[in-house]
């Protein structure tokens, strides 16, 4: 897993609530047996007319040339629905390192963190401030300080992340390494049940 410390980037505003993982990556793309290459199908059915890559939908934000960046900003309840980790893989593979929303679904949040994608939960008011920025404006996220800043205005908020996950992400460690190191404790737990 890649480590993540600080990032300053323009962002892509997705003003849609309840974005479910079926929209992030439709089920027909879940037939793969590896984690790579999902980015091209991210938001597939919102991106293209009739599943045709030569017909991008002009009204969808990923197709609007003025927007770019490594930060995706979405309305509340992002990542609801299916537990498919393919959703996190497709967001990462597309090039996003951070997703900002006023509310995340639980499983998506875990999946994102397990892949080095940082979910940043902000207040509704702050989310609206971000949405009010232009396509050239940038956001800065400092994981160690747990802050997100709108660079143009200087407005900032702190965000929550548990200390353990923060350490993992800052250093690029994953849970599996940790659990493998706990083998004896787990065996001892099993023995006394």
């Amino acid at each position, binding site marked *: 897993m890649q480590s993540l410390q600080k990032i300053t980037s323009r962002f892509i505003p997705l003003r849609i609530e309840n974005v479910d993982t079926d929209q992030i990556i439709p089920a027909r793309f879940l037939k793969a047996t590896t984690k790579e290459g999902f980015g091209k199908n991210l938001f597939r059915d919102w991106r293209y007319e009739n599943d045709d890559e030569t017909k991008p939908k002009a009204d969808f934000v990923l197709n609007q040339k003025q927007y770019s960046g490594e930060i995706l900003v979405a309305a509340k309840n992002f990542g609801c629905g299916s537990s498919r980790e393919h959703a996190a893989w497709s967001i990462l593979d597309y090039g996003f390192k951070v997703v900002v929303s006023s509310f995340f679904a639980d499983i998506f949040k*875990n999946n994102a963190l397990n892949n080095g994608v940082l979910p940043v939960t902000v207040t509704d008011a702050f989310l609206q401030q971000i949405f009010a920025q232009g396509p050239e404006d940038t956001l800065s996220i400092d994981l160690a300080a747990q802050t997100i800043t709108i660079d143009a205005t200087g407005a900032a908020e702190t965000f929550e992340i*548990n*200390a353990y*996950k923060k350490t993992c992400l800052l250093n690029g460690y994953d849970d599996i390494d940790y659990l*493998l190191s706990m083998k004896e404790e787990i065996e001892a737990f099993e023995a006394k049940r």
Partner: protein
Amino acid sequence: MGNTLFGKIWDKHVVKQIKDGPSVLYIDKHFIHEVTSPQAFSGIEKRGAKLFRPAQIVATADHNVPTVNQHLPIADQLSRFQVDTLIDNCKKHGVTLYGLGHEHQGIVHVIGPELGITQPGMTIVCGDSHTSTHGAFGSVAFGIGTSEVEMVFASQCIMQTKPKAMRINIEGTLNKGVVSKDIILYIIAKISASGATGYFVEYAGSAIRALSMEARMTICNMSIEMGARGGLIAPDQTTFDYIQGRMFAPKGADWEQQLAEWKTLYSDADAQFDMEINIDAADIEPMITYGTNPGMGLSVTGTLPTMESFTDTTEQQNFEKALNYMGLQPGQSLLGMPIQNVFIGSCTNSRIEDFRLVACIIKGKQKDPAVKTLIVPGSQEVAKQIKKEGLDKIFEAAGIEIRQAGCSACLGMNEDKIPAGEYCVSTSNRNFEGRQGAGARTMLVSPLTAAAALLTGKITDIRTLLN
């Protein structure tokens, strides 16, 4: 102070509590399937690690399998490769597989309970968000991502922050024509698709106690559709009677010992919940969804909200987007609307009791000739039972084909898809855009309301067809 049912089970499985971090939670049973496991197997191999407790894992192929001609090789090359990868991985790592063609094959959340693998007090995970189904037995069961599948492969543990506890009490007697699916659709419509995010929900009250195990599974199944980490119901005599005698159920002295322990699984009278909701069963009517998330539901006789009922502009835009997708108007009624497809199946409603309910409505009648059907039992065992009870004859006489077990049109990974722009009255769990096929318009209902649509070809109040 007393503990909640959820708290009792969770606490007993904590191997270690990381300071300011998650718990290391021990997992009793791990179900896997072909779609969310391959990357976890390759991950563990890349680390040079072995599966820690392969005997605690059970595999099946369900998401990506055809529901006709299962004896033939899978036509779709990618699907076949994925299912074959599961076979290879299970063989290589010593995992029990109930694969295609096996008498125990079926939707993972149908076969677990059916075989008696799912038992009270357990922690159960699976790389599928509807793992909450198993909570109907008084277990802590929840869906996980593939990295977490790999964690359980590596250590039989998972890193997880303890959710808060919610209790939803449903007291009273259900109205005629109202079944457990209506209860859960009613709850989700009431608290929204994100209303239980961060919580583990216990369903309680006299209306829940009166339900069969199949009906309880339908309710727990959809806990995730309101954002909950999982849902559970305290085990009682109904639970014990269902489990006893099943293939993997404890036997003899072991049964007595387990039973004594299972009887301690309830929320103490003084247990504190972080949130509690009370519902009167009499308020629940047959339900249907009109929008593109399971929270957008109403009574089948109701009318859609109007634009003015939303104060927030983002909410208005989202409502408008959903209605555009569904081809519906604000304020309209759904009754009498023609529909083109009926899907009966999925881990929500594909058990024998669901087929009995449908059979009881369609017996001696013909389906509307314009309606296309996908009727898919949850498992080989359910299919066998359908035949044993002669329900297949009732479906056949009504002009309806019963297919073979799998997830089918619930998520449209295989060929079972709903054509763009067409309506599908569906007993599944999600009405997301494109879920049942690109452009498909899903309306979630109970098996009874689906049966009514089968006969009339329209959105119908099932109560008008009951004596």
